[in-house]
């Protein structure tokens, strides 16, 4: 169990590490790492592997918005039903039920503000249970999934020290 948790930490910090290097760090062999990864995947603990992209450094326009969504439930409709419907849109990159003054936090991505606005007004707002949407366009991303987007600090340590 502990090895599995450590493996998860390693993959969280760098999912592209080679199986051999992961095995060396965990003090085990590559076959064992493969087994643990398979288990994590089949248990649903690992749902995917993705790059952390800083779109400011990609030569195309990319817009993201965080949309607050209020919904009204009835006897037949539960949060899960609404979520299933919204999650199907490829424009929706994240969907969470949250506590507080609104119900769902939805991340929407598109090529332009116009694309995103149109998606929200034409696809999300008309859903019968949705009573209100508030769209916040992301202006600058400083940190994403633990990765800081600024310049790294130089290593100022002495090259050799006792």
């Amino acid at each position, binding site marked *: 169990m502990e090895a599995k948790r450590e493996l998860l930490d*390693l993959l969280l910090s760098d999912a592209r*590490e080679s199986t051999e290097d992961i095995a060396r760090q965990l003090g085990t062999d590559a076959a064992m790492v493969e087994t643990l990864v398979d288990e994590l995947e089949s248990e649903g603990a690992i749902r995917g592997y993705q790059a952390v992209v800083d779109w400011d450094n990609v030569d195309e326009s990319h817009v993201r918005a965080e949309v607050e969504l209020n919904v009204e439930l009835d006897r037949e409709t539960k949060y899960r039903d609404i979520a299933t419907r919204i999650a199907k849109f490829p424009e929706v990159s994240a969907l969470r039920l949250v506590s507080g003054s609104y119900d769902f936090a939805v991340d929407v991505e598109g090529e332009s503000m116009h694309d995103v606005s149109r998606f929200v007004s034409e696809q999300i707002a008309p859903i019968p249970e949705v009573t209100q949407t508030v769209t916040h366009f992301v202006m600058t991303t400083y940190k994403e999934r633990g990765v800081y987007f600024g310049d790294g600090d130089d290593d100022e340590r002495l*090259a*050799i*020290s006792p």
Partner: protein
Amino acid sequence: MTAGTGESEESSPLSQRARETPPSGIRRFFELAEEMDDLISLGVGEPDFSAPWAARSAAIDSLERGRTSYTANRGRRDLREAIADHVRRYDHSYDPDEEILVSTGASEAVDLAMRALVDPGDTVAVPQPSYLSYGPTVSFAGGEVLPVQTRVENEFALTYEDLERAGAEAASVMVLCYPNNPTGAVMTRAQLQDVAEFARDHDIFVLSDEIYAALRYEDDHVSIATLPGMATRTVVFNGFSKAYAMTGMRLGYALGPPEVIGAMNRIHQYTMLSAPTTAQFAAIEALHSCDDALTEMRQAFNRRRNFVISRFNELGMDCFEAKGAFYVFPKCPPGWEDDEAFAEALIREERVALVPGRVFGEGGRGHLRVSYASGMPELKTALDRIEAFVESS
């Protein structure tokens, strides 16, 4: 002084002590490393992490509130209380008023202890390989260094036999440094019991440098001071540099019997007055809230440790399983006897800096000190370069 003729010994303004202090054994490698581009250094004796943000924030806050005056000679009382509380995890029990001294790095405390305990002509047993500063501090106090070689067969743990072989019964003071720089060696309770027995048998006072106590990877740290009859004949050194990545803050502490700590404080009050105030505020916060950061750093170090040990052994460079600090101590690969020649060729040809083992004492000959206080990407590249070098040489 006569111009142009080179100064004779008589004309130098320097004291005999200064003239006899040799340059540090790492200086030559430092100079080689300094002139290299694209160098990866595994020769660094400090963590690559920064101090936990909460500790840095406490330091900033103290500055904003203008808390820049001296503290009590022994250090702020709330810090000494926090230290007394913290070291209970190692089964220590020290009175913050009389048995704890906050110093400018553990280094200052080592120097103070030598001056408080060593008279001219006294013998101080110094196990080697070990950190470079013990010998010079013995000399500054007028003492004689008695090197005690530890051996790779014992994974560089100090044994009763090592001490006997070196004639350490003549010593009045003995240094102990575990987890060890440069070998990464640790000592178990049973091994420490032998050393404690030797110290009791021959009435030797022990200076135990435990600066790497928080960095043990397979079991808990045991301090020799907690063994029967040892608390009264041991000063323990620890600090914030290695555990909390606060090297530049210069803050350490000594734990020991009131008489010795009191004597150290008398010297400290004239030479240092008090340890840096800003660092003391950072340290209080580190002890109060940074255990999680410490655990994370230790986990990261442990993965790197596993990685480098496994890589060196794959390369045919025998590397025993060092269980502490952030060093491993592999042997030079087959065909290379001379650690200094190997390290120099490696830095010139593959731009990877390691420290030759002999710098840390004769017992280090044929070994290399490798610090894994670098990120995994650097460690991987460095090991790939070492592999290329070993295969081509």
